[in-house]
């Protein structure tokens, strides 16, 4: 027994038209996306040095082309919305290089409108983020029994810091900072 697919000529027209429009849009979107950078990110690092004058200690910043273990690096990320339109759900991430350790408390909150956006941290390579103190579950054998404990993740184990901005206005610019110690 033969089978025929019922397919009226009118329905064929209606089916094809959206497909053609979809194709046209599909060609357009990459063309738009290849335009100018929408969010411009500029990352800098400076070496933080302590200066002591007349018994008073102050900080100075030097270019961080070469550092030594134990020295403190300050990472500065400037993010700018280069467009004339607001951008939403802007997540700005400063990774913490594995050769350095995050210096606890060195990432200031970002004033945004009337609130302050607290930095979130990740210890798993940026997969998950949370506000300190971060906790991790560890299983171990104690007295022959397998137990699971929740242990606090040391700030030195953080891998990424992130600020989540609900919106970044047209041409708006923010500056984020954190410090790490060279291991």
């Amino acid at each position: 027994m033969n089978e025929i697919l019922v397919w009226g000529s009118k329905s064929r027209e209606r089916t094809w038209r959206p497909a053609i429009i979809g194709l046209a849009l599909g060609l357009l979107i990459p063309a738009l996306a290849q335009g100018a950078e929408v969010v411009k990110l500029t990352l800098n690092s400076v070496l933080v040095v302590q200066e002591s004058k007349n018994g008073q200690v102050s900080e100075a910043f030097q270019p961080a082309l070469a550092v030594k273990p134990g020295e403190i690096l300050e990472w500065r990320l400037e993010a700018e919305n280069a467009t004339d339109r607001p951008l939403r759900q802007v997540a700005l991430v400063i990774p913490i290089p594995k050769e350095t350790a995050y210096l606890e408390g060195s990432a200031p909150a970002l004033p945004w409108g009337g609130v302050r956006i607290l930095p979130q941290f990740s210890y798993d390579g940026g997969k998950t983020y949370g506000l300190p103190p971060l906790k991790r579950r560890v299983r171990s054998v104690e007295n022959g029994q397998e137990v699971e404990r929740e242990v606090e993740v040391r700030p030195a184990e953080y891998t990424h810091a992130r600020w989540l901005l609900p919106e970044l206005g047209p041409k708006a610019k923010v500056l984020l900072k954190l410090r790490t110690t060279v291991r």
Partner: protein
Amino acid sequence: MKKPVGIIGVLLSLWFSLALAAPTPAGTSIQNQASATYVDSAGQPRSTTSNLVVTVVQQVYSFTITPNGANEASPGQTRSGLPGSQVLFNYQVTNTGNGTDTINLATVQGTADNFDLTGVQIFLDANCNGNLDAGETTPITGVTLNMGNSACLIVRATLPTSATNGQYGNLNLTGTSVGNPNVKDNDNWARATATTAAALTAFKSASPSGNVTPGSTITYTVSGANTGGGAAYGVSVTGLSGTGILVADTIPSGLSVSSMPTGSAGAGTVSFVYSTDGSSWSPLGSSNLPLTGNGTVAIGLFISGSGAFFPQGASYTFSFGATVPTGAASGTLYTNSATVRFNDGTAPQTVTTNSTTNTVGAGYNVAVGPYGFPTAGASGTYTALGYTVTRSGDAQSIASVYDGTTVIFRHTLRNTGNAADSFTLGFSGAPTGWSCGLVADDLTTPISGPVGPVAAGADYNFALKCQVPAGATGNSFTLTVTATSVGDPGKTDPTTDTVTALADGFRLDLYGGVNGYGPYTQSQTQNGTNYTSDDLSTSRPPIYQNGTVYPSANPGAQVVYRLRVKNLNPSGQADNYTLLVQPGSGYAAAVDSLLFYPDANDDGLPDGPPISSTGLLGANGEFKYLAVVTLKNTAPPGPAGFSFAAQSSQSGAEPKDFAPTQINVNTLAQVSLIPDRSGTVTSPGTIQYTHTLTNSSNTGATCTVSGNGGSYGWTYQYSLDGTTWAPSLIGISLTPNGGNQTIYVRVLVPAGEPIGRTDVNTLTASCDVGSTSASATASETTTVVGGDLRLSKSAVSYVGTSATVRSSDGSQAYPGDTLVYTVLAENIGTADLKAVKVADPLPGYTGFVSVSATATGFPAGATVLYSTDGTTWSTAAPTSLPAGGTVYVGVNTNGDGTIDGNDVMPPGAKITLTFKVQVQ
């Protein structure tokens, strides 16, 4: 001003803690690149990255020399010997910088002492046993160490022969970094005391030296001899009877001694002892083992004897094995030294050996198993994507999985090594067609590349996710998931996931009824499986209109079915069903189109344009739709059978469900005989007419044609070909749907008929159509004329304004069609006719298009003239004509511009008037 101070405090404490860990090697590039994700104004998620910042780590120079002795008054180690004998000082130098460095070594004689030591030399103690062995006798002035490495040193010195009992000399070992000469270690004072009494040496060795692996055993050996000037005495030891020489070793924390030590001495009686508090000792028996080091637990050799029992030259050795715990972290240090207590004849003495240091190397291992049970021994169940996963030992299984669904086996991996490690995850055994992949614990994010680093002892959860293809069947599919250590690719662990059986996950039901004859549940399943796609029988209850009667319809009519498709997928998956029709006997000849329309509100009216599928339909969802069957105008009478069908688009393997039905096409009996004809004839004379007999029925017709003969006895004859004439026609066979036959009628008018007599012949076609009949009539109206001018008129209709003929006899025309009338006026007499005017009125419901005329057989110079009122004439044809108007045509033969009695029409002359109008 508190803040900077605070930061410095943090910095110092950090430096301290970082100093314990290995610093970043010199030359390392610290690279960093920030990133951002956001949603742009068009609602599109986007991401971007910053510039790359590169910073190079420079070398720092740092080292330590131990043991420390801050100054001459507090030496870090003291050795005793006879005047003129050699003493050995033991040191360890460690490169704590972040690159390779050479440490220059030198010795400094003390000034706050009794004498200078002579023959001072520095040696490398390659096996770190504290003693100068063969092959270690080349003096050195420096040592080159890689980052993090250590070396054991021996400083050998000779006591001056002039020294007297109790005098001492101090010596400092200093080190200077070659990389940074400002980095020094100068607080390593040691003391050598001259004694004429007994003096025991004590050396400590560890085998292996340096790196050890978790679970391995370190053999510690303490050995020495009496190198003094007299026999040694024993001391009283708390908990032990008598006196003796105690060789005591505090077991490094974490190490455990589980077998009895060995040892011997050149004099006295040896026994093995232990202490749990470091001060009180007891005899050691195997029942006291194992002994695990905690900072105070100690093991020892007790050489008992009374008086000066241990003569000059007598030696001793003590050896025990200590096992490194299997969970020891990489980098853990086990440092050990021993003490020897004896009495030199004047006072109790304690000699401390050199220190040995063993470092736990990185040991990599991995265990992977069922979720929550990385080391196997699993039990219990959990649920993933609706399936219950059963854990047992090192395996997981799902009893039954529907085809077309996704299964997830969650897993837990444990780093059972002693160092952070990454792991390569893999799987094998996926059946053909299954689409499997490893995902993170969110059960979504695919895993690519090794996972980790995972801290030693920590767990990492992930999952194996498999899409079982629709249509798959079979039993017992086992996949093996494997985790492999990146640190040691030889360390790998498998675990298995099994799907015990596959079940059919798809089922659909198609049912309905004829619109207006509910309920629309014919062919619906009664028990959940019969009459569904899972019913493999080839029969289904048909869809009737009423009882067991199928719907009937005339050709060209529509029959509407109200149908439903229900998603009965046992797997609970949504599905999109393709709507189909399976033609049966009579379908192709009868059905013009069959279109499906959505009818969500179930009112029997289409909700929108035609569809070919249901769209995504959730589990247990019912999709209501219409099937509109339009019959062809030519559909033959009788049954047109077909089945509605629906097919899953998710599973091509799932059979269709169908519902058979049938439409009975009615017989349509319809014949026509057109047009009515009229004409003029002289008496006597003949005239011939034609009619068309058409069979518009949906089946063949057999017809008889006869006339009533009119009222005056004229002779009417009929023909099918215009040649063979008969009083009537019988057995005319016409094919269905437009089969036609031209019927010729000839009228023979006898002489003597009065001018103006009109006779009407009514022609009747009687047809047998299938089991029924149909008839049609037409007429010929013939008028007797006296003159010799014969007029005949014919018409042709055209489709619109095109040249396509709609009807060659003008019998059919649609609004907008063009009708062309041709009027032929002919002098059939033998004499001239005068003042001939041919008139033709504009028919009702038509509009004037054009008129033209030609004339033949007239004298030379004759011209055709036109008029719209019959009195005013023009050579130009009129371009318009009002409704109800008439056009006149004449031929002017005398050149006076009008038609009157002076204009003649010779015998045989013809005027042809062509009148074009358009149907309104």
